[in-house]
Structures are given as structure tokens and as C-alpha cells.
């Protein structure tokens, strides 16, 4: 027993090996322009960016309106909104699956296991987050801008434009938060996309698959690429935000 224990401590740490070889493989995959990897990356970006843009088109105007408007039950609505921000992605995936499945209300569209279904799932996932963040920003600081705009003679539309301009950096950060939530999500896209090779496989579902197959180095390689993309996108956006200040 003592010998076994001793020999175990003498062995190299396998996880560190996996990490190192994974990172080397990641570099090789990126440099060799591996077509499958780039297809997965492009699909991941397409699905997540589409979901965030669609969600923002609804959330920014509605969040501004909600933040400025005084109405009965506003406190209840805000609590509901904040609670929905933490909805588990698998629950959203399951609901979308039931809606899009053949027997579901939108089954006739035949969208299940397509990138469109993944965009829908991620849009639903990101919407409470973007709406909640926008609502909170406007509720805290929007009234002052609104009042100033109205006093200077702006109409309702001009006030909304003014608010978007004044809070553009906040909105950009909200967009990035939404994008980060979407691109790192696995549960919903796995359920409604099915992780089909060449069709609905994205980076997170690939990592989950590689992990279950024991291909840790490839999983780490994809993980590293995912981190790199997040870092790259965030850096570009924050650099832009700095120039706006």
C-alpha cells in the first residue's frame, strides 16, 4: 500500500498534461485553419450575435419605456423581471423544444434541430437579462435626461434618441453581457439544436461532447478558442467604448 501511494506521487499529473497538450492542439487547430473548427466558431458567433441583436431591438426601446413610465404594479413587474434574469437555460431549451416539436404549436415550421431554433432559444434566454439591465439603468438615471430633453423642447421620439445617446456605453456593456451569456450557454442549444455535426454543433456543445467521449485535449482546445473569442470581442468593444467617452 505504501509503495502504491509512493508510485502514485511519482507519476506526472495527467490533468496538467491534458491542459498543456490541449493548449498546443488549440494553437495547431487555429494555425492550420481546421475547417471543422472554423465552421463551429462561425456558427457559434452567428447564433449568439443574431440572438443578442434581435433581443436588443426589442429590449432597448421597451426597457427605456418601462424605466420611465410610472404605472401601478411597476414594482411587481421589476421583481418579475429580475427573477427571470436567472432562468436556467435548460428550462428555456425545454420550453422551446416543446413549442417547436412536431406536436407543438409551432411544430409546422419545422425549425427544431436547426440553427434558427438555437437563435430563438438564445434570444429567449438573453431577453430578460438585457431587459432587466436596460430597465435598471433607465430607472436609476433616465428621468434626469428625459426631463432635460423635454425642457429643451424635445418630443417623445427625440427623448428616446437622446437617452440612447447618453447611455450608449451602458447599453454596449449590456450587449456584451448578453453576448457573453449567449455564447457560453450550452443547455438550451443542446436541447433545441441537437448538436448535429455540420448543422447545429457549436463550441459549447462540442466541448460537452468531447468531454463525454474522453477527448479532453480537443475539448480544452475548443475551450481555449472560446475564451480567446470572448476576450477578443470584449477587447474590441471596450476599446470602442473608451473612444466614445
Amino acid at each position, binding site marked *: 500500500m505504501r509503495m502504491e501511494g509512493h508510485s502514485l506521487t511519482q507519476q506526472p499529473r495527467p490533468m496538467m498534461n491534458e491542459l498543456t497538450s490541449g493548449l498546443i492542439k488549440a494553437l495547431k487547430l487555429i494555425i492550420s485553419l481546421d475547417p471543422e473548427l472554423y465552421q463551429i466558431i462561425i456558427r457559434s458567433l452567428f447564433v449568439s450575435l443574431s440572438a443578442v441583436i434581435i433581443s436588443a431591438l426589442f429590449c432597448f426601446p421597451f426597457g427605456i419605456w418601462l424605466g420611465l413610465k410610472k404605472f401601478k404594479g411597476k414594482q411587481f413587474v421589476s421583481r418579475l423581471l429580475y427573477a427571470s434574469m436567472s432562468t436556467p437555460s435548460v428550462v428555456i431549451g425545454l420550453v422551446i423544444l416543446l413549442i417547436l416539436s412536431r406536436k407543438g404549436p409551432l411544430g409546422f415550421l419545422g425549425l427544431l434541430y436547426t440553427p434558427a431554433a438555437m437563435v430563438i432559444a438564445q434570444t429567449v434566454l438573453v431577453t430578460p437579462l438585457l431587459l432587466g439591465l436596460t430597465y435598471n439603468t433607465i430607472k436609476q438615471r433616465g428621468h434626469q*435626461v428625459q*426631463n432635460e430633453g*423635454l*425642457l*429643451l*423642447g424635445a418630443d417623445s421620439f427625440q427623448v428616446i434618441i437622446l437617452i440612447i445617446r447618453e447611455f450608449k456605453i451602458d447599453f454596449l456593456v449590456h450587449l456584451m453581457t448578453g453576448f457573453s451569456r449567449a455564447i457560453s450557454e450550452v443547455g438550451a442549444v443542446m436541447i433545441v439544436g441537437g448538436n448535429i455535426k455540420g448543422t447545429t454543433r457549436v463550441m459549447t456543445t462540442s466541448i460537452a461532447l468531447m468531454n463525454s467521449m474522453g477527448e479532453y485535449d480537443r475539448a480544452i482546445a475548443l475551450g481555449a478558442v472560446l475564451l480567446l473569442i470572448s476576450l477578443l470581442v470584449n477587447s474590441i468593444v471596450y476599446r470602442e467604448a473608451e473612444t466614445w467617452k
Partner: protein
Amino acid sequence: MEVRIQKLLKKYNQKTILDILDMHFKEGTIIGLLGDNGAGKSTLLKIISGIEKDYEGQILYNGYPLKDCHKQRIGMVSQKPYLFKRSVFENIEYPLKIRKIEKKKRKEIVDGYLREMNLEAIKGQRADTLSGGEAQKVALARALAAAPKLLLLDETTANIHEEAACAIETQLKSYHEQMGCTIIFVTHNLTQAERFCDECVWIK
């Protein structure tokens, strides 16, 4: 612009903030609005400006309730004005831009106010980085650029030293003479009220 307040009642959390039976601000006068802290002076200005709508009673502007055409002719500068996150020039230009005044004319008007208010040196500076006194001047220039016929000033010179306050008063007097507008001026300073205003109203 003439303003008449009739049977105004403003409550906040069951507490009466303002209870005015009848008050009249004549056209073309400078009225000083005085009163203790919490008397409701700022609330009254917000009600007159149209941004505070939750009250009972009636406010008449040239004999009519508030209409969009009146809103375009009311200007207000609060004690802590909000300046947009853009340059001083763009801040003053904003009311002219939304009124779709052509670019050349806009530049002419803005340059005029920058000169009058001694703001030329900082015209390119971001407005949210200015000192309190400079910010007040920019806010005032922006309000005046919209050519209001009713100007509401909420302790506009409270955070500025005496000399700068006098300079702003001179600017306001000159604008008042040119435009014949009505100015309602909230202040705690009795000397300033005597010096600057035609009439004074004390709110209890």
C-alpha cells in the same frame, strides 16, 4: 409669457407641499420666488415647466392650459443641471438642432452665446467634466439658445461666487430686455432678489 396659477394643490405622501389659491406672473417681468427650505419653490417651478404633472388645479399660459407650442417656449435651469455627455458647443446646440434650425444659423447662435458667457475657451471640452460654475453657465446658455418666452431658474447662481453671479445676472437682464420674456427666479439671497427682480413672491 403670462402665467396664472389657480387653486393649485400638490400633495406628496398625503402631505400638502403646495396650496396656492391664485397667483399671477405678469408677462415681461422678473419675479423672485423666495421661501424657506422645503416650501415647495422647486416643485412649483417643475409644475410650471410641465415636467411635474401630478397635481390638482390649473396653470394657464397666456390664458390657455399647457400645449405643445407653450412647451417649446419654456426654458428651465435647475440647481444641478444635467449636461449631455458631449462638448459644450454640442450642448448649447442641442435645442436648436431638435428645432431643425440650419447648421450655419445654429453655429452663429451658439458662437454668440459662447462669446457672451465667456465660454469660448472651453467650447470643445466635454460638458460633464466642467466645474459647477462653468456647468451652470453652459446650462443657462443652452436654455437661452432655445429662445424661451418663460425662463424658470432654480437657484441658478447658488453655487457660483458673487462676481460670476453678477455677470450671469447681467446676461439675463440683457436677454430679458431683448426678448421681453418672463423670468421666475428661485433664490435664497434677498440682496440678489432686490437687485435682480422686479417683484418678489414669498412662499410659506
